[in-house]
């Protein structure tokens, strides 16, 4: 996998941009090429915000990705907008806490993560983005688990409790992702 692209999409306030940035840092830690690009412009006022991260072993060409390999959607409008855009053979991660739709596409893999519930349970309701990030890494291995863990320690380490719960949900998300992939692999 020489290049991997992930789009995170949701409402403002769901930690969309942070999720993308954490992934980018983890990519850099692995000495990969990375681009993070946010949506700006009219979308920003429309309710959905998104960002895309490209992680690559080689020089990155286009920072704009029409059909990313993976899209993580955090709310309903994002699901509607982005579900059709996942690259064939790619991965769609759905925050099932807020989205009760499912994808009909047969050319992609889907993963439903009750991110808000898991975050609340872990005592850090704001960490649903980390749950999804964990799941993404579990399901895709776009970066190593280690790398993202170290990144989170470094970037979110200033608040001790928050860090602990973040690492906890990261792990949970990761396991979920890995398991799902194994399952799929069996098919």
């Amino acid at each position, binding site marked *: 996998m020489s290049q991997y692209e992930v789009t995170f999409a949701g409402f403002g306030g769901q930690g969309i941009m942070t999720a993308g940035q954490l992934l980018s840092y983890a990519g850099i830690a692995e000495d990969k090429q*990375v681009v993070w690009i946010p949506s700006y412009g009219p979308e920003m006022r429309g309710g959905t915000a998104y960002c895309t991260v490209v992680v690559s072993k080689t020089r990155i*060409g286009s*920072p*704009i990705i*029409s059909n990313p390999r993976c899209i993580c959607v955090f709310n309903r409008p994002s699901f509607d907008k982005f579900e059709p855009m996942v690259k064939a053979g790619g991965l769609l991660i759905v925050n099932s806490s807020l989205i009760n739709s499912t994808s009909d596409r047969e050319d992609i893999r889907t993963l439903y993560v009750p991110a808000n519930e898991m975050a609340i349970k872990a005592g850090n309701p704001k960490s649903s983005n980390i749950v999804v990030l964990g799941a993404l890494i579990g399901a895709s291995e776009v970066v190593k688990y280690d790398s993202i863990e170290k990144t989170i320690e470094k970037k979110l380490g200033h608040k001790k409790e928050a860090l602990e719960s973040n690492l906890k949900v990261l792990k949970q998300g990761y396991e979920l992702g890995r398991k799902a992939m194994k399952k799929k692999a069996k098919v």
Partner: protein
Amino acid sequence: MTKVLMKGNEAIAEAAIKAGCRAYFCYPITPQSEVAEYMAKRMPEVDGVFLQGESEVGVGNMLFGAAATGRRVFSTSSSPGISLMQESISYMAGAQLPVVLVNIMRGGPGLGGILPAQSDYFQSVKGGGHGDYRLLVLAPSTIQEAVDLMMLSFHLADKYRNPVMMIGDGMIGQMMEPVEFPDKYEEPPLPDKPWALTGAAGRKAQVVKSLFLDPIMLEKNSWLLHEKYEQMKLNETRFELYKVNPKNEILIISYGTMARICQTAIDELEEHGISVGLFRPVSLFPFPEQQLLKAATQKGVKAVLTVEMSTAQMHEDVQRIVMGKTPTEFFGRTGGVVPSPQEVIDQVMGLLDKYPGKKKAQHSASKSKKAQGK
């Protein structure tokens, strides 16, 4: 030197500081306001001047006054704001002041939109203000390059006593990439600045001006500027070749982030056995004319394709330079629409149809309906 992940706008700001710039004037405008916001925090930390002006007209002229001190000064804006600076830019060019400007371009004309575009090429490269003058124009395609060119801009501005403008589409401002900053910015030695206004102590009073009521003097000034531009043409053309080689059937000319999109298209085309080269001018003025001509007239090249986020601006320069020696074609999206690699691929496929000459049985990269329909 460690790698940090930075937003383009912030990296540009930090690069300016690294290059020794301690004076930044601005007026907020999307998509470059983060430069101002970053500078508002950073400048006081380095004992520099941060000032938000009342307008871009004001800012252009604050820059003018500040540059006359001989120190490194800087401003950033986006398309409509740059239009408002045209008078002051013309004045600063006429008065031979080294200033550095960045235009993070958005869609125009008019208020237009705020998404990425490259439709200010004419304005920056040909001169949006009045009179015979030129800006030295640089166009980065990555954040690292933005940082490097940013620092270089200050050097070149001083070297030529001329305004330098770096232009990037909104993506350059908004995206994050890992960048490295030198611990200390090293640059070749530069001439003194005896023209700087420091007070008439121990020397005659002097003046920084663009007024020459005597036409002979004004003409002299204009040819002197012209001579500098000729020097730039000799010394400061910058460009990058990507997969330019004798097998190329098509040569793409594209700059900035648009060139990266073309790069992705070229990689994909290559996988399908189609050889396309990319000529990416990094300096838009001076334009790497001879180098482009050489690449465009390689033997196998059937056509040259300019790809821009505009309705064709740089393309006029490409036509001028290639002189019909190879057919010149254009593809562009504008107004904030960023073409996808696939669209570029489709264009290339279309050109291979239009200019056959060689077999292309193996060509099947095109996936768009339009191309498939052919």
